[in-house]
């Protein structure tokens, strides 16, 4: 008899557990949805083309989008605090062309690489200080950063500069092979940055403060968290990511070009949103953003496989963004109603 009673209640408990898990993890759903879409995209492309999910093609996905992954990690931290960083595309162009120029002038890569990452960090610091200490909206402050970095890129050079430095080209040309799979040092850098970002967000005090600031800045301040320091630091981190992305992109294209990365900030924001980060701040995962970038990259590859106009990429990304903000909206509304 006791078992007769226990069995349905155990089922109910299990259902209850599933429901409360979903409730607590409601914010994981968009990220999960992005993952499902990524997998469906891959399967769909495989069925349609027959030769899509090859190790070569999937390896190229990471290689081609390494710089986007790096930018998306930095952007995720900024967006989770409730801010936005429009400057990343321009900063990437600036550090990329600066890198190419300094290398062409004969400086060693060991000097140039830290220097350009520092350059990105300085622009990030500028944005962070404007946002935090002068109460400028992140949109406008990072807009200043965008203009500044784009202009500086053209000051460095008006035309593209080829890179002949071997250690920079090594980042791109080296292929560590595992059977038919391969990974380049740039790919490893991207994954490393993502891993660092994910670790920082999940397991460090700094990361928890980022979520707290994005959730409710006022409460975070009253709790005695270091809000000011955190907000400035996320912009510095994003700037450093952009600096590193400049190096990766320069290695990838074999040249620095001051018109690189126009509109890249929008692609990055789209990828981050598709990956499940709420633009209102307070929720989001670095892993989600990486998936978001892969969704973006897959769509791009599919379109080039189809031989269609690349302008379709942005149309589809735009539509996808729309669907995802719709989904997020529903989740947020439901979570509020439950409260």
């Amino acid at each position: 008899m006791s078992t007769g009673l226990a069995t349905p209640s155990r089922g109910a408990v299990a259902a209850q557990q599933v429901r409360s898990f979903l409730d607590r993890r409601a914010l994981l759903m968009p990220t999960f949805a992005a993952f499902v879409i990524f997998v469906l995209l891959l399967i769909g492309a495989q069925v349609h083309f027959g030769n899509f999910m090859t190790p070569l093609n999937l390896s190229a996905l990471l290689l081609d989008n390494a710089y986007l992954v790096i930018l998306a990690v930095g952007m995720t931290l900024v967006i989770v605090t409730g801010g936005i960083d429009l400057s990343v595309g321009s900063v990437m162009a600036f550090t990329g062309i600066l890198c190419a120029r300094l290398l062409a002038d004969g400086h060693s890569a060991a000097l140039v690489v830290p220097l350009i990452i520092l350059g990105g960090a300085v622009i990030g610091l500028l944005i962070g200080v404007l946002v935090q200490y002068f109460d400028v909206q992140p949109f406008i402050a990072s807009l200043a950063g965008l203009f500044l970095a784009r202009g500086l890129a053209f000051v460095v050079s008006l035309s593209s500069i080829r890179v002949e430095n071997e250690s920079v080209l090594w980042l791109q040309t080296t292929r560590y092979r595992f059977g038919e799979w391969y990974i380049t040092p740039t790919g490893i850098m991207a994954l490393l940055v993502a891993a660092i970002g994910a670790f920082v967000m999940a397991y460090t005090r700094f990361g928890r403060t980022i979520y707290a600031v994005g959730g409710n800045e006022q409460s975070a301040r009253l709790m005695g968290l270091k809000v000011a320091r955190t907000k400035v630091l996320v912009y510095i981190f994003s700037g450093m990511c952009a600096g590193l992305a400049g190096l990766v992109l320069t290695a990838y294209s074999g040249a620095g070009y001051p018109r690189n990365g126009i509109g890249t900030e929008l692609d990055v924001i789209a990828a981050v949103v598709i990956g499940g980060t709420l633009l209102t701040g307070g929720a989001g995962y670095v892993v989600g953003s990486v998936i978001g970038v892969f969704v973006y990259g897959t769509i791009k590859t599919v379109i080039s496989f189809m031989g269609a106009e690349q302008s379709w990429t942005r149309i589809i990304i735009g539509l996808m963004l729309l669907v995802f903000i719709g989904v997020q909206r529903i989740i947020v509304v439901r979570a509020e109603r439950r409260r």
Partner: protein
Amino acid sequence: MRRIVQHRLFWPVFSLVALIVVNTVARPRFIKITVRDGELYGALIDILRNSAPLMLVALGMTLVIATRGIDLSVGAVMAVSGAVALTIIDDSSSPGSTTTVLAAIAAGVGVALLLGAWNGFLVAVLNIQPIIATLVLMLAGRGVALLITDGFITTVNSHPLNYVASGYLLFVPFAFVIAVAAVTVIALFERRTALGMLTEAVGINPEASRLAGVRSRGIILGAYVVSGTLAGVAGIIYSSNIRAADANAAGELIELYAILAVVLGGTSLMGGKFTIAGTVVGVLIIQTLKSTILFLGVSSAESPVFFAAVVIIVVLIQSPRVHGLARGLTGRGRSSEVPARTDAEVPA
């Protein structure tokens, strides 16, 4: 004197006048306006003519920002409207006829209006954050424009179309006439009816104004429709000026310059109080600055550095913290303005 200095248009107008004075000192020709064949010529006239697209876009942006929104899609809308209009003219049998051109312009601006309504729908009805709602169209719009033009730059040689950007009406450039007409119409609607006040109410506190019976949804939707339509007109002027539909270059970065113009004019990005006169001055400052930078011999590619400096200076001037510092320096303790939101104060 104090009252003049404290007027909210004082600093924008002061900056504009200062820019013009500096230019005139550096090159006396700058201020000179000549009349030739009933048409005005001169550096100042060029500034007025070239400012037309930005003026239209910034005007719409002012209304959108007043409702606490932002419209990132204006550049893409410009590209689409130009692409639609020029493709129609290009495909027609009589590209030189005024009827064709008028129909094509109506089609282009009509599409822009629909795109604005789409943005408004996302923001006002679906309650999506404006920055994201308009980002959708900003990403997709240029792609659509590229599809319309088949990825090419559609060039058109049509006299009535060229008139839009380079023609003259009663001594003044026609493009400037369009901009002035738009400013006048919008200003009359906003300031001679209750619409402006209601728009500000929505921007200051959407929830309170809704409870007070303001139909905020319609007002927000309307702001985006106006912004889209004006961007459409700006797209036509831009295409007419280069005599081509260039889906990539049309309205590139114009959303940022328009936002900058609005902020320069003294409208806060937080929504609420807005000033159309301020936006007009803001646009003229930007255009004069562009002309100055060109005159200084800086390549136009490098000009963003100057704009970065301007943005930083302007936001610092507007920053409550700097106001506090300045008051501390001048020793004037009393202040009629409330300096800052308390929650924005930074802990030590």
